[in-house]
């Protein structure tokens, strides 16, 4: 399954915010987590993550810090702020509404689901 480009773009911000809500992280590990969560279905161009992270930083949703862990190379870590948590909560509300609406219409009488269900 190839997920539509617009859908990938739209889900990028809530995904990154949610991953950072699990704890501070750096770019490469965030991408790995995205692949893991979507079982490799969500394919991002790696470089695109960084402008997104910088935008979140400008909006005050995350703070950043360069750090060298005991083992490993110097990396820039991103930490979710309270504003970021609030933005994530808002995103969750919006996505919940969208998925509920889609679910209702697909399950509903004469909806797509029975037709697809046979396949």
């Amino acid at each position, binding site marked *: 399954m190839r997920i539509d480009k617009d859908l990938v773009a739209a889900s990028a911000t809530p995904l990154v915010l949610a991953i950072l809500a699990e704890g501070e992280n750096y770019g490469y590990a965030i991408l790995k987590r995205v692949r893991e969560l979507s079982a490799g279905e969500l394919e991002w161009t790696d470089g695109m993550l960084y402008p997104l992270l*910088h935008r979140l930083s400008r909006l005050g949703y995350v703070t950043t810090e360069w750090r060298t862990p005991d083992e490993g190379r*110097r990396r820039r870590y991103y930490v979710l702020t309270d504003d970021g948590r609030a933005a994530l909560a808002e995103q969750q509300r919006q996505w919940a509404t969208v998925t509920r609406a889609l679910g209702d219409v697909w399950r509903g009488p004469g909806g797509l689901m029975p037709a697809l269900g046979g396949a």
Partner: protein
Amino acid sequence: MDPVEAGPPEIQIAEEQVVESQIAEWRAYVAKAPAVDGRDVDELEAHLRDQIAELDAADLSADEAFLVAVKRMGSLDTLSREFAREHSDRLWKQLVLGGDDEQARPSGGWVEALGFAAGAAVAIQVARLLAHFPDEEPVWFLRNIGLLVLPFLAGYFAHRRRRLDVRQWVLTAVPFVVAALVVNLYPYRPDAATELLVAAHLPVVLWFAAAYPYMGGTVRSHERRMDFVRFTGEWAIYFVLIALGGGVLLALTGAILDPIGVDIDRIAEWVVPSGAAGAVVVAAWLVESKQHVVENMAPVLTMLFTPLFAVMLTVAAVTYAVSGVSGAFDRELLGVFDALMVVVLGLVLYAMSARDPSRPPGLMDRIQLLAVASALVLDVMVLGSMVARIGDLGFTPNRVAALGLNLVLLVNLAGTAWFSTRFLAGRTAFHRLERWQTRYLPVFALWAAIVVAVLPPVFAFA
């Protein structure tokens, strides 16, 4: 990396060197993208190395791992465009304004700029001859100066952006047409104070009108508004530089021609109005095409003058608080404070446009907050005394204009102080402060428009 899997140690080392040099090349290549700065390249390189290490572990040769990692990173074109979208402030410094919609013209656009400059110079000269300025000083000439010059600036932007459709062309022209009608059809009484107020405020209105074609019609974008603020600041620097150069040239010409009996005043009458009008467009062109000359100046000017103004304002605020305002109060004072607030606001905007939004709060931000807070304290004292006395003095057009401007600036600086305090306390991002300023811009335009269009009828064109 596991040498046992990847082959004999000596080949391994050779391969590592190759990959190191490949990474260095890739790094240099990425660093060339205008919107990607050094620390971003560090970040991307760390990512690339993580990816290579993981692929190495999955049994790819170092060479292959590098290729795959680079491919995954995405094409540099797309990458740099994404970075450019997020970091337009960096782009601004690198002169790639307009992006890929605007092809670089080999002439650098100076022919067009010169054409529009010449248009403005001729327009003002014709009007001057008709007005017999400066032998006579008809107010209609003063009233219309903005209308004689700034349409050429707007035209220059509209021409340069090249992507305005018909609707946008009309929207660009409408403010100028309306202004021309309002300014010239109002039946001013002789020696009307409102007429001079219109002459002073109209250029401000039209400057904001020129912002529309400058932004290529995208007036809602806060980033583009910030670009326009930046443009205004740099334009002012260039205009002053041109004016200084022109002054030296004129003085020397006078000194040379004086012995053979040529009167320099007669020459200046011709040269100064046209020169100034042309310089408006030429300065705009210089900002657009020679940005990197000035971009280092705005930070230096702010670094230099923010502390000086902070000291001056703090001392003044303390002195006023001790001695009381009433003794020093007179009619002119409000005008002086308007000028002061404009300068403080200018400093704030300069500092903001030159600042990297992601930098944490520093000493300079604190000094700036001190300057803004002192200016606020001073202004509130003066304003309080003014409002208390307005009953005896009565409302005149000048007083209303000065008072209104003062309030507009006061609200802006109060907002600035509030957001800076929160920013310094680490409670909000710098971006909020920027947003406050860009959101507030239309208020300035609106107030100037009110003075031009509403104030004269309210005071019966007196």
